[in-house]
């Protein structure tokens, strides 16, 4: 990758360039430390903020929306018309974090891999341009909940982005990760980077890595315990007792993919088939018509979530782990049973048994 630089005061010119071809989404500040990804217009352009806490509503919704109309069905007298709906609007996400890029990578493997390819996802994904922003400011970009280092997805993504920006002081270092990115870098606003710039990047990243909690080894041990089925039933029950079944962890997770499909009668006598995010935390997720529910108890459902995310089998199946270390589940959980807390609980409980 050829590295380029751009002066810090010119970084927003990238947004202008993007707006020529794409609808641009960028991070903005809300009240307090709230932040969100929103569409950029000429009016709000000046409010874009790159160094803010990672927005909690995950950018996976730009390729996998919270609610998406799949098709419209018109039942006439003799004829039934089914009209699928696809979204082909080219979208550029400016300032997406490395953990979220990995999340989209996981979604790529899930929706486009296996026996079937999901066309709705594919169409959105094909017209997506990702400008990744490397997290370099602990306390601002990086919060207490982040653990991308454990999940090996950050703070700087290694692939799947089109462009990557990193703030190294007075300039931003820019690299391309795709053909589209390379094309983009041809613009004269980007200047050649020197070895000194690259060294600066390396030094900053090395410092930043030291700021993360030292739990890297815990993840791999937990994967082992979960895959071997060595986690105590008691631990799952403890986790279940703290879970309030809100579904938040699933909705904010960049690597969660479950959805439900529903037929809704729309206003003018049509039927629309929509798909909506669903969560395995909820009691009705596995309930069959007729009443049988294989995962009725809350701790059985929590068991399922962490097995799906941590078991070696699935990591191998998709060549990607369904946890990117963003820490949103920890932030959004009522009972503090997000991924970091559960990893710790599993490790503690299982180590004690092993010690016996």
């Amino acid at each position: 990758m050829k590295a380029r630089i751009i002066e810090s005061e010119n970084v927003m010119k990238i947004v202008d360039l993007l707006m020529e071809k794409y609808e641009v989404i960028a991070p903005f500040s809300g009240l307090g430390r709230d932040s969100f990804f929103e569409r950029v217009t000429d009016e709000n352009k000046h409010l874009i903020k790159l160094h803010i806490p990672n927005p909690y509503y995950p950018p996976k919704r730009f390729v996998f929306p919270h609610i998406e109309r799949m098709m419209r069905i018109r039942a006439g007298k003799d004829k039934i018309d089914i009209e699928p709906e696809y979204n082909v609007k080219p979208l550029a996400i400016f300032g997406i974090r490395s953990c979220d890029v990995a999340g989209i990578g996981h979604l790529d493997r899930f929706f486009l891999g296996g026996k079937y390819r999901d066309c709705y996802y594919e169409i959105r994904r094909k017209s997506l341009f990702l400008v990744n922003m490397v997290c370099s400011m602990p306390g601002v970009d990086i919060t207490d909940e982040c653990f991308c280092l454990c999940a090996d997805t950050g703070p700087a993504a290694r692939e799947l982005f089109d462009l990557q920006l990193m703030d190294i002081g007075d300039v931003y270092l820019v690299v391309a990760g795709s053909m589209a990115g390379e094309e983009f870098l041809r613009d004269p606003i980007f200047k050649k980077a020197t070895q000194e710039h690259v060294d600066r990047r390396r030094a900053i990243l090395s410092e930043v890595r030291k700021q993360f909690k030292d739990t890297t080894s815990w993840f791999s041990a937990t994967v082992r315990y979960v895959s071997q089925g060595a986690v105590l039933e008691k631990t799952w029950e403890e986790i279940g007792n703290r879970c309030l079944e809100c579904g938040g962890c699933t909705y904010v997770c960049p690597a969660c993919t479950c959805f439900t499909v529903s037929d809704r009668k729309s206003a003018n006598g049509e039927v629309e088939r929509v798909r909506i995010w669903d969560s395995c935390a909820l009691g009705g997720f596995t309930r069959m018509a007729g009443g049988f529910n294989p995962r009725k108890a809350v701790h059985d459902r929590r068991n399922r979530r962490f097995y799906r995310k941590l078991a070696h089998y699935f990591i191998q199946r998709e060549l990607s782990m369904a946890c990117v270390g963003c820490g949103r589940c920890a932030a959004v959980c009522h009972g503090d049973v997000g991924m970091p807390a559960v990893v710790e609980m599993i490790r503690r409980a299982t180590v004690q048994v092993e010690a016996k």
Partner: protein
Amino acid sequence: MAHKLTTCTFCGVGCGLYLETDGKNIFGAYPSMSHPTNRGRICIRGWHVHEVASAPDRLKKPLIKKNGTFVETTWDEAVNTVVQRLREIKEKYGSDSLAFLCSPRCSNEESYLLQKFARAVIGTNNVDHGTGVYGHNSINVLLEMIGVPASTNSIEELDKSEVIIVDGVDLGKQLPTIGGRVIRAHLNGAKVIVIDSRRHRVAENADIFLQIRPGTEYILYGAMCKIIYDKGLCNRSFIKGHCQDFDKFLESIRGYDLIGASDECGVAPDLIEKAATWYATAKNAAILYSTGIESRRVESIIGSVNLCLIAGQIGKEGAGIYPLTEHNNLQGVCDMGMIPSRFAGYYSVDDFAGRARLEKIWGKRLPTSPGLNARETLTHCGNGKIKAIWLCRYDPVSTAFFADAVSSLERAEFVVVQHLFKTATGDYADVILPCTAYGEEQVTFTNTERRIQLTAKAIEPLGEAIPAWKQICMIANAFGENWDYNTAADVMAEIGRVVPFYERASYDNLSADYGRQWPCTLEKPHGTKTLFADGDIPYKFKFLPLPGFTEQRMEEKDYPLQLIFGHSLYYWHRNVLIQHSEILKREYRILLLDYPEGFVEVNTSDAEKLKVRDGEKVQIVARTGSAVAAVRLTNEIRQGTVFVPYFLREVGEKILGRAINGQDYVPVRIQKLTT
């Protein structure tokens, strides 16, 4: 795409959340990380709160019943019809023949204007919000004992509580954000004491779980107070400096001995002693109880406030008493005076000074005697006294449990309904006025910690729907008034003049931060987080005596089990949101699908003795009547107690409907159905 900060309008927590919208549709909802109440967390209902606005069966135009069927009409015709009929009935039968009921989900603006219309224009105090008799218990007791009918502390302070008592509320299902706070406080070392006859999720995280017999809360509190006194753990300086009537109270708990109380309540005496000691010796300890339908008789609330006062656990961070409001604006609706015996601001209708003040501001004479409450209005149409009923966002046919809404509505000569959907109540209406939904108007709601918050207008109203508060203005003006509120902010400005503790709660002030907690006055424009803090106690708190302790529980041979009612899962009064959200509908229907005709929860050991199986239909027999339900075996319910969810119509009508007023359990027996 815009992201609008708004307030969730489901339960009394009022979590801060953002709506994602493109001006025409709302696409998503997610929590606000910095909101002091929920700090980045919302519950399953919050994640789907945006779905109601786009439901296909929303009413778009006013409806009038002509020859037995509903016909769409114009706003002019609808308003004129309403005005004409209300006038006719008022002239023929008098002001008190009209009744105005709203739901505890109504906004502050519409509640305020509705009671103003009822009182200043029609001239009646027949106003109420639909929770029935229990909600009023809390207001009256709190006003008398601590002078404020609301939580004394804030939800975020639970982080600092050393001890938290959760009394009779399933936080995990009703107010999950607070449940989460309690669970996390517990993880951080707080001691959690749960008092409930059902073992719920938060109870699994408790340090002490007092699974008491239903209805014995006041005995428990009385015993705890006596232990605290006997052990010399009262906060003497606090009692001496800030309370009155302590001796009378002390006299009343003389008979609450520990063993007797333990026997009555059905929990071990050492647990009661431990709970009392922990509470009294904690630096700060909080009591949470619910003012929802499941709740409390007067004695229980008195008991809990007495406990709070005897230990001096009020007026400091992390302490206090929280009468939790389960509906999102129960607090606001009461603040705005939708109570038959109180005006906005809690002034008694028969209090001369309070009434005179309001008469001066409104420029009208106001009625002086308390009106009929919702239960009375909807029982035989106020025993014949009520001829016209106005329902604001209220669907009593589906949700009013304690009265016979259907026959009352049929009997009334004129019924006007303001709602989003036709609802079951709509069938009995004469005029239906379509309201705006969540996300379509900017109005305010007051959550359970007195926080007055704005909701955002994210999209335009559907069809010809108009905000409910505006509809009330239109009708008042057609009546001859001159209500010139242009925006909801104007209504709030007047509320600020009428309700002293809303004085500075203007929209500008409210939008500067995450709303403001009242009292929000000129002296405290940023609102008040903790009441009575820093020694700011302007009057004396009052102890109230508890009833004499007698061995009440007679093992009723014929009716050995106690039947209690309550919420179940996400049932939530067949709430409008749940009906229109795919996932919520699926979740709430689980129990309904497993037990299509409802269920009665029976403890596994009781079921063994009765020889009944899960799913088996049984007869519940009470002194007043009997009903049939399917058995649901569970160990969550206490032995000797059976639980029935509120949606079981038959059980409600045949058993509770005729039960003694104010009783929170009914003695029953379960017997196999004789085929």
